[in-house]
C-alpha cells in the first residue's frame, strides 16, 4: 500500500522530517506543508538527505505555504513537485492512507 506522509515542521527546528524519511517505505510520497516547506529549499544542510531519498520516495511541496514564506519555485531542490490544496486532496486520494508527522 502506498502511503502519503505529510510533514509540517521545519527540518532545522525538529527531527520530524528526519523521522519521516527513516520510516517512510519505498514507493511512498512525502508532502511538505506549513513550516515543513523550508526543507524543500536548495543549499541547506538538509538537502543532501533529500537528494539521496529522491530515488525511493516522491516529494511534493504545498505551493500556498511556499508563497507565504517567500520561497520561489527556482529555490527548490530538483525533483520537488509543487501542488496546491486541490493537489493535496488528490494526493490523499491517490494514496491508500495518510500519515501526518507532527
Amino acid at each position: 500500500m502506498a502511503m502519503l506522509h505529510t510533514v509540517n515542521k521545519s527540518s532545522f527546528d525538529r527531527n520530524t522530517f528526519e523521522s519521516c524519511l527513516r520510516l517512510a517505505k519505498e514507493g511512498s510520497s512525502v508532502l511538505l506543508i506549513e513550516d515543513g516547506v523550508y526543507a524543500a529549499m536548495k543549499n541547506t544542510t538538509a538537502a543532501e538527505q533529500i537528494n539521496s531519498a529522491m530515488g525511493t520516495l516522491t516529494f511534493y511541496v504545498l505551493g500556498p505555504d511556499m508563497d507565504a514564506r517567500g520561497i520561489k519555485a527556482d529555490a527548490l531542490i530538483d525533483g520537488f513537485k509543487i501542488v496546491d490544496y486541490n493537489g493535496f486532496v488528490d494526493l490523499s486520494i491517490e494514496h491508500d492512507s495518510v500519515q501526518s508527522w507532527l
Partner: protein
Amino acid sequence: MKFGIMINEGPYNHQAADSAYQFAKAALEKGHEIFRVFFYHDGVNNATRLAVPPQDDRNVTKMWQELAEAHKLDLVVCIAAAQRRGILDADEAKRQGKDADNIASGFRISGLGQLIEAGIQADRLLVFGD
C-alpha cells in the same frame, strides 16, 4: 470520497486549523464529502464564539461555521478535551454549575467515540496539528 479530519491545535497559535480548513474547502469544492471534523487537544478552542480577532485578520471560527452551514458539516468537539480547556455548551455549563457557556453555533460537543467512528466511516482520515 469520504474524508475525516482531526484538528489538534487552537486557532491563530498554530496553522493547523487553517490548513485543515483549506484542505476541507478544496475537498468539498471537488465534490468530495467530509464525514466529520473532530476537534481535539487545544483544537477545541476553535469552537468558542467569544473570539474577536483583529479586523484585518481571518476569523477561524466563523470560517468553520460558514463552511459547515454551506455543506452541512458535522463539527464535533471532544467533551473531555473541551472540559479541561473551558469550552462548554449550555447543557454542559448547567451540568457543571458554570454561569456561562461559550460554544459557537454549528459545533457540537460529544465523545471520543466520534473520532473512532470517523476513522471507521471515512475513506481517509487526516490529522492537522503541531
